[in-house]
């Protein structure tokens, strides 16, 4: 399948999305809620582009979930797109003025200032739901969006320390705005108000995972051939040694 992104001819497989194809061609499209290992959410609305499918009208679409088609023409940066992204950034920075990471950089890049009075000046969350997706895909789905409208937030069931959380910290790792707090002190980890014991690697001695996470991986039979008692880097070293010997 052939398409054109910013005048560059690109090859793509059916079912791929415009943002992924553009990135392969070295064209970056701004986004906050996207993680290459997770499906697109189209939540942050920053990856807007102009797309013209062959023989059809141009429309503004979110490139992270817009499928490629034969002869598709994409423009990732135009006056119109820039204007729309500025509006999106204004709304995001008003909601989450304390957000860490890319949001502030984009605001600077697009010359956006927060002209509104934010409802909560300490808010970091843009409610993109990337953490919820990560927990669904990798963990037990211990968090979700609760309530709605202005009260909407990411929470665990009954807003209590979640009983099913395995403390893998995937939610905190993917969070693009630094909202989810996760503290490791070498012995234990605290996340979502729950304390977990950290297991140490018998080879290098570094704490690398919670007991619950290892039990979960064993239960889900993720990598049956893996030695889950070792940390990922020691495991890689062991595998490398074995393949040299083998």
């Amino acid at each position, binding site marked *: 399948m052939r398409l054109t992104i910013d005048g560059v001819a690109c090859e793509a497989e059916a079912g791929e999305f415009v943002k992924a194809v553009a990135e392969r061609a070295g064209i970056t499209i701004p986004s906050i809620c996207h993680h290459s290992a997770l499906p697109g959410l189209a939540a942050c609305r920053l990856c807007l582009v102009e797309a013209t499918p062959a023989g059809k009208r141009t429309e503004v679409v979110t490139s992270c979930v817009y499928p490629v088609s034969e002869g598709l023409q994409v423009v990732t940066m135009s006056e119109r797109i820039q204007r729309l992204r500025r509006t999106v950034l204004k709304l995001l920075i008003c909601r989450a003025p304390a957000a860490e990471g890319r949001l502030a950089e984009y605001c600077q890049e697009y010359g956006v200032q927060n002209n509104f009075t934010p409802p909560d000046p300490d808010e970091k969350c843009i409610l993109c739901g990337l953490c919820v997706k990560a927990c669904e895909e990798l963990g037990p789905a*211990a968090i979700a969006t609760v309530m709605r409208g202005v009260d909407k937030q990411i929470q665990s*069931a009954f807003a209590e320390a979640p009983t099913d959380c395995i403390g893998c910290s995937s939610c905190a790792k993917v969070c693009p705005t630094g909202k989810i707090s996760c503290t490791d002190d070498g012995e234990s980890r605290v996340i979502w108000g729950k304390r977990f014991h950290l297991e140490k690697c018998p080879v290098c001695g570094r704490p690398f995972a919670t007991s619950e996470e290892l039990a979960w991986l064993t239960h889900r039979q993720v990598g049956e051939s893996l030695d889950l008692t070792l940390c990922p880097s020691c495991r890689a070293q062991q595998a490398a040694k074995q393949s040299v010997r083998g």
Partner: protein
Amino acid sequence: MVEKTEAEQIQEIIQHYPGQRRHALAAMQDMQHCFNYLPRAGLVALAEHMHCPLVQLYSMATFYKALSLKPKGRHIIKVCDGTACHIKGSMSMIDGVQRHLKISPGDVSADGQFSVETVNCLGTCALAPVLLVDEKHFGKVTLGQLPQVIDSYKPGGGNDG
């Protein structure tokens, strides 16, 4: 006749549905209807039956206005505060209900008989200002009639039962 325990009632509702997540909302509506709210034990049992994470049911329960995690009163008074009712003085109607039952919208009266809610439109604007008690509409209500309407739902009143 022996009264069924809450746990038995919960099981009865849940077992009515196949163990698939798409039936969760229907089961939660039944539970709301049965208990006037969603007991925590009900959500936990439902999550187990539907093989779905508890937080996802909690998410639905907090999203829909028709579902409540706090017990509601035996009778639910909905005071319409849509545009037409608002113009026709629904604000003083809300005050009137508040004065009579000594509770604010969203609360339950001390005797557990009444819940008061405001709603955005009941779709019967010609009857403004409108009051909905349980399933019954009261149109063109005046502040003077209000105590009479509410009292008819108290135990022993004409509409109680």
